[in-house]
């Protein structure tokens, strides 16, 4: 747990942005790992298996939030930057705020691909195991994500 907890936490945090949400999800993730470690078939690395569980838990949490929440102005990228600025656990500079706003213009899966490649420096092969998607599709997704983010930030 000690070895992977930080990496997995940050991965989840980048998806959910809020610390309390990330805290709940990461705890659920490790409880699930504890209960199902005997089912780990060693067909993939432990690292990618853990990432897969964490990703699925985060996506489930996001979907639950979307079902509960009524669409509001806080859901767009500007609203999100306001939320981040107001967040006690966000101390980013303007550059980081812009990046977060840009990331929130991406579809969830594309954002995920970008985070895993850009922040976690994961190889496409490992990413394919985590997201159950082909390497080619992941490369295309990452390339599009980078272009979109650059365009968004340049336009600010």
């Amino acid at each position, binding site marked *: 747990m*000690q070895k992977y907890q930080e990496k997995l936490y940050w991965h989840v945090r980048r998806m959910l942005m809020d*610390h309390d949400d990330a805290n709940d999800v990461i*705890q659920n993730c490790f*409880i699930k790992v504890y209960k199902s470690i005997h089912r780990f078939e060693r067909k993939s690395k432990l690292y990618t298996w853990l990432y897969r569980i964490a990703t699925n838990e985060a996506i489930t949490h996001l979907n639950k939030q979307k079902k509960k929440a009524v669409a509001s102005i806080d859901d767009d990228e500007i609203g999100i930057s306001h939320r981040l600025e107001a967040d006690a656990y966000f101390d*980013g500079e303007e550059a*980081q705020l812009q990046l977060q706003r840009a990331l929130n213009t991406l579809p969830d899966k594309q954002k995920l691909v970008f985070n895993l490649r850009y922040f976690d420096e994961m190889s496409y092969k490992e990413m394919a195991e985590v997201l159950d998607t082909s390497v080619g599709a992941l490369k295309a997704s990452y*390339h599009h994500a*980078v272009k979109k*983010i*650059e365009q968004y930030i340049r336009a600010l």
Partner: protein
Amino acid sequence: MKNTDDIKKELEELSPFLSKRKKEKEGFEVPTNYFRKLPDLIMDRIQEEETLSSSSAPTTNWLDQIIERIQLLLQPQYAMALASIAIFIMVSIFFFEQDNALLGANTLAEVSDEEINSYVMDNLEEFEIDLLMDAIDEENLEKEIESESSSDDDYLDNIIDDLSDKELEELM
């Protein structure tokens, strides 16, 4: 290391603008000592869940255990297997009994009429007269009596032919 270099090179090719931005600080923070406390938080939750699940499970007596096992056997996957075994046993019994009946019939067919008659004569007291009478074929019995009586007549004729006149007169 190679992977990091590859990723860096890839980003430089895709977007020199983005590759120049520092990414060591994303802006997100955590409470003090969060990662040090996180394992304990997780273990506390696991223990709490395990305590809740064991305390909510009701104690069962032997009858409940039997009922539980029967219910388990009635689940589809087990019920199918049991039904298949039951059908197999019933079919086996059915064919086994048929074979036995045929065997009896075949065995009886191999016994000759002479052996049967001999057995009946030796064990006459074990048979009821009425059943024996019923078993006799009247038509064949009459023919048999006729043929026996005709052979007797022939026998007597032969004896008479051998007698002299004087002996015949003495007999009369």
